[in-house]
């Protein structure tokens, strides 16, 4: 089990990355395209040399002033979107490649390869040519190949992105099982909140070449603190001031009533102090009145009315329709509150048509209090 510590700059990519991962932890790395997720992985794998700063694997300095340990001496395995099996070898020799490259005798390398193949459920494919297996099988074999080298660190770069949904689900549980069993320090780049939640202990958010937030994954996904993660998990997130444990005042004068969420301790990594930390990692504050906080609710929980609703629902806000996007059988309505906060609402096609909901239309948004969670910051 090896810790990963990065405190490095890459000048030509305007990246200044400060990151650390506990030994044996799995960190989901999320962020917009081009934000620097790949740069972080390449710094760890050794494909990229930092222009300043250093990278450590455990106690070993692998990149720093005057030091650059090449990729093949770092014991950092990489699994990409594409399995990238070696087409000229059969499946068994693909998996035995790493041990062989490290000088393990052929018989021993094949024994190890067979064990790894069995562990990913592909033992029966050992004699196949690499190009004869399916995409899902290829990715399993690629995982076996990566783990057969006893890596100190495993880098997973969107390993499920190229797979069909059904295959991806099986691969996700295989990854979970294998990575947990091996206790290997892992960095997982993903665009899928579900993957992060299912596989990772910790979440690191990379934006504009910086690690801007890092923390326990459950905490960071259920209490998103920035629009990127909120979009990732696909929930509405309204920042405001908590005036009571169950009430949040919005800057525009509206208020939100919901269920208070208590703080919970989570194991996981923490960002190193440095210029990269903008949000920092403030400990969960008690939900003291007057503290800043967030309201969190799903777009499907939002009802849209053309007129002021009758009765007195706990949460009702005037809003303006900004955009209307069809999403399969649903319509995603993006509205703006008086203070400019965006709120997404999912309606059926029929409901949207009935209400004549077009951009610019004034509407009323209604959400049941039971479907809103309030978080403190």
């Amino acid at each position, binding site marked *: 089990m090896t810790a990963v510590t990065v405190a490095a700059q890459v000048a030509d990519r305007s990246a200044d990355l400060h990151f650390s991962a506990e030994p044996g932890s799995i960190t989901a790395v999320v962020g917009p395209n081009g934000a620097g997720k790949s740069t972080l992985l390449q710094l760890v794998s050794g494909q990229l040399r930092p222009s300043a700063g250093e990278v450590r694997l455990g106690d070993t300095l692998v990149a720093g002033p005057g030091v650059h340990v090449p990729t*093949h001496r770092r014991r950092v395995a990489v699994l990409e979107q594409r399995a990238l099996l*070696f087409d000229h070898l059969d499946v068994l020799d693909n998996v035995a490649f*790493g041990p062989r490259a*490290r000088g393990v005798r052929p018989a021993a390398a094949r024994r190890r390869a067979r064990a790894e193949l069995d562990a990913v459920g592909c033992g029966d494919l050992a004699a196949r040519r690499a190009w004869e297996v399916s*995409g899902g099988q290829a990715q399993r074999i690629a995982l076996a190949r990566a783990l057969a080298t006893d890596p100190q660190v495993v880098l997973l770069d969107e390993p499920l992105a*190229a797979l069909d949904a059904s295959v991806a689900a099986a691969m996700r549980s295989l990854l979970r099982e294998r990575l947990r069993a091996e206790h290997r320090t892992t960095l997982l780049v993903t665009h899928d909140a579900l993957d992060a939640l299912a596989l990772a202990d910790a979440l690191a958010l990379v934006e504009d070449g910086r690690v801007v937030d890092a923390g326990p994954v459950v905490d960071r996904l259920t209490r998103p603190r920035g629009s990127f993660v909120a979009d990732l998990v696909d929930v509405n997130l309204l920042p405001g001031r908590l005036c009571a444990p169950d009430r949040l005042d919005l800057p525009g004068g509206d208020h939100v009533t919901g269920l208070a969420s208590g703080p919970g301790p989570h194991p996981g990594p923490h960002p190193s102090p440095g210029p990269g930390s903008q949000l920092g990692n403030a400990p969960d504050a008690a939900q003291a009145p007057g503290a800043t906080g967030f309201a969190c609710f799903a777009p499907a929980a939002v009802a849209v009315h053309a007129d002021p609703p009758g009765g007195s629902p706990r949460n009702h806000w005037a809003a303006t329709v900004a955009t209307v996007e069809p999403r399969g059988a649903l319509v995603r309505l993006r509205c703006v509150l008086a203070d400019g906060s965006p709120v997404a609402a999912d309606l059926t096609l029929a409901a949207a048509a009935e209400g004549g909901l077009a951009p610019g239309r004034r509407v009323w948004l209604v959400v049941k209090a039971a479907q809103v969670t309030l978080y403190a910051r």
Partner: protein
Amino acid sequence: MTPRWLYLPAAAALAFLTVPLLGIPLRVAWADLPALLTTPAALDALGLSLVTCLAATAVSVLLGLPLALLLARSDGPLAGVVRTLVTLPMVLPPVVAGLALLITFGRRGTVGAPLSALGIEIGFTTLAVVLAQVFVAMPYLITSVEGAVRTAGFARERVAASLGASPTHTLLHVTVPVTAPALATGTALTFARALGEFGATITFAGALQGVTRTLPLEIYQVRELDTASALALSLVLVAVAAVTVALTAWLSRRTPRRGVA
């Protein structure tokens, strides 16, 4: 839907390309073929062509493969210039190639003169034939291998490095096997081009039976006086060319192309 009138010019093109080639087997004196191909001059030419082409192909692979691998990894203006220079001999008129070799490796050439002072003479030797063949044929190896390496990409090499393979181990166990079909194709093309080399050889190496008179030079020599021999030897060249092209096509079909989503 293809317009039907396309068939007319297409048929003309096909006929123009195939009829002259078919003419050779039709006109060859098949009964005399063994005798025609076993005259001392013919045997010398066949043997010399075989030996020099194998040598030229070996040199092209040993020197051209590293250049192709490096070029495939290089971008930027310098690489572009190198790539252009390397492909130039492919499109150069052979006689120009011969003159270029002459003013370089000839007795008074930039490289030949110092060598000559040391008592090493290249002109009129079998070595000169090999040099001429390498000069015109190696570009075929370089361009086919470089193209294949670029197409294959470097992702697998990155994977190999992450699995602990040193750059040399990666080269020998990933890059070369992955590009093996292209290497085979390039090697076949190189051999075929070396076998057909005529202009640079006659300009630079001269023509002497058993020393520098390769198959094409022998055909040129006997074509007026002894058409039967010239046709018989030409048939050998056509057959080798046909086998090379067929082999190349077969190899490129055999290359696995997995559909990576």
